[in-house]
């Protein structure tokens, strides 16, 4: 499996978004999970919460640091991954599948196209590495 799956969209703050029917599922990328190292805790937004594109809506914690997770698009939180409460390590082992964070009912689908495709995101990563 590619480190940055082509069917996902990416934000510059290392979140990915996957459109599924009426909702958009959100998580963090392979790069982010590696930087974090072992995740110890995730604070997810409550179901029903309104979120805005680019605004912090969740927190992910490792032993050494805590990072904000920013909503890649605006809308309402309709689902959260409760498995992360007891097993936050899923974020490290399966960042694109079982380690998903939450799903948003988008208020403005156009915002999805403002996100990067996998090529552009990978390019950004290489740029900042040099």
């Amino acid at each position: 499996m590619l480190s940055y799956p082509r069917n996902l969209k990416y934000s510059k703050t290392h979140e990915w978004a996957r459109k599924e029917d009426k909702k958009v599922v959100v998580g963090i990328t392979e790069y982010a999970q590696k930087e974090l190292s072992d995740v110890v805790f995730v604070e997810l937004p409550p179901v029903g919460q309104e979120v805005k594109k680019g605004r912090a809506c969740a927190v992910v914690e490792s032993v050494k640091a805590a990072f904000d997770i920013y909503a890649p698009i605006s809308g309402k939180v309709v689902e959260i991954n409760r498995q992360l409460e007891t097993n936050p390590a899923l974020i490290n082992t399966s960042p694109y599948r079982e380690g998903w964070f939450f799903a948003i009912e988008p208020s403005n689908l156009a915002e999805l196209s403002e996100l990067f495709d996998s090529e552009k995101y990978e390019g950004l990563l290489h740029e900042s590495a040099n």
Partner: protein
Amino acid sequence: MNVITDLGEKKRVMEKQIAGRESKLIFEKSRPGKRVHLTPKSKISQSVKREWIPSVLERKREALLPELSEPEIVRHFLNLSQKNFSVDTNFYPLGSCTMKYNPKINEDMAAHPSFTNLHPYQPEETVQGILRIFYDLEQWLIALTGMDRFSLQPAAGAQGELLGMMIARAFHRSNGDTKRRKVIVPDSSHGTNPASAALYGFEVVTIKSNERGRVDLNELARATNEETACLMLTNPNTLGLFEDEIIEIQKMLHQKGSLLYYDGANMNALLGIARPGDMGFDIVHLNLHKTFSTPHGGGGPGAGPLGVKKRLEKFLPVPLVEKKGDKYFLNGQLPASIGKVKSFYGNSGVLLRAYTYIRKLGIDGLCQVSRDAIINANYLRKKLNGTFVIPYPEFCMHEFVASAEAQNSFGVHASDIAKRLLDFGFYAPTVYFPLIVKEAIMIEPTETESRETLDQFAKVMHEIDREARECPETVKLAPHTLPVSRPDEVAAARNPILTYRDLISQKS
């Protein structure tokens, strides 16, 4: 001899051995019926007691508290103390911490009943002694730093920083300058600097250091404008290098209406050599538990007195210690004061220790502190150069930064070297700080270490380098000789067990 061949049995035997060596909590040693008799026998009768403690106000929940005899208590704590590294027992070259010797006369004075039995609300005429001590201490800190007034109230460096931020904001506000919302810090700064600024609502602007490891004047000029409230610096900086362009820096910031804040963590390099007040700093905090020998106490208590220039005096917290004739008093009449950051007057016991230290050393002794601190640091730097990468090719002041880059190629990191040092009886230097040096190892020997200790430390560092090349596992799995090794911090954070009650509910 019984040869254990069954693997399962081997594991069980090992588990038993481990359990036997495990540290027992005081609760696990406790048994009902054991007691230490301390307070006079109570003469309260049952009926009277009920009247004084109405049922609706009475505690009903049982508290799980220990029950032991005095000999058992003493043995429990003293055995625990033996598991600690400490300045009294080990060399502690922690950069930026100034782990110097804690003089015992300081402890005697801080334990003196004529101090310990003073209530903070006693009438001033009954506490002239301690007020005089505070007053004199302030005068001496003024002399050492070149500032105009000090508040002795902050309980630690971080609290001093926060107070400094409050004063900066109050100052700009009093000038009608409400646009100044930004604080500038260099990328080499200690974490508490931007933290204190952000905590108080400032926006933090980080500027890159130049190739000499100093503040880049061009970067600084670009970042400074009418929105700048303050620049926070330490000098020498966290690389142990003196900011030699400080006069230019000071001019630039003041011209643009900003204030300058000095983080006094590295003051051990400057006593008798240069003063932050003369450099142009407006606000200065000192760490008495670093430069002024008060003990670290396993993490506290410390004290972080805050000094200011005249134009900022009126914002200092209440009360200040003043003198009229030969009488000392507490002045709470400061209408522009930012308020109070701590109850009462500060960590009086820590202030008394610092006072004792300064009075003992006197002017010559204090100057000697920085001289020997700088000699020791440069000596150790010379000895480690070559074996460890030392990024900045110049003399350091009281501390220097090395890098474990060379050892990385064998898979050994700065944190591994730190752990391996423990096996040799040395506490590790600061690692991974400052952030601008890869695999940083920050070393500050202080002036209270002998040449013999430094030679021994250098020898061990060379040995560890050899181990990194020849048998890296020895370093990567260190420590090997201590009661515990490489705790699982991820598990501790995923499933926090924070009290005895947590522990017993986990077991069941």
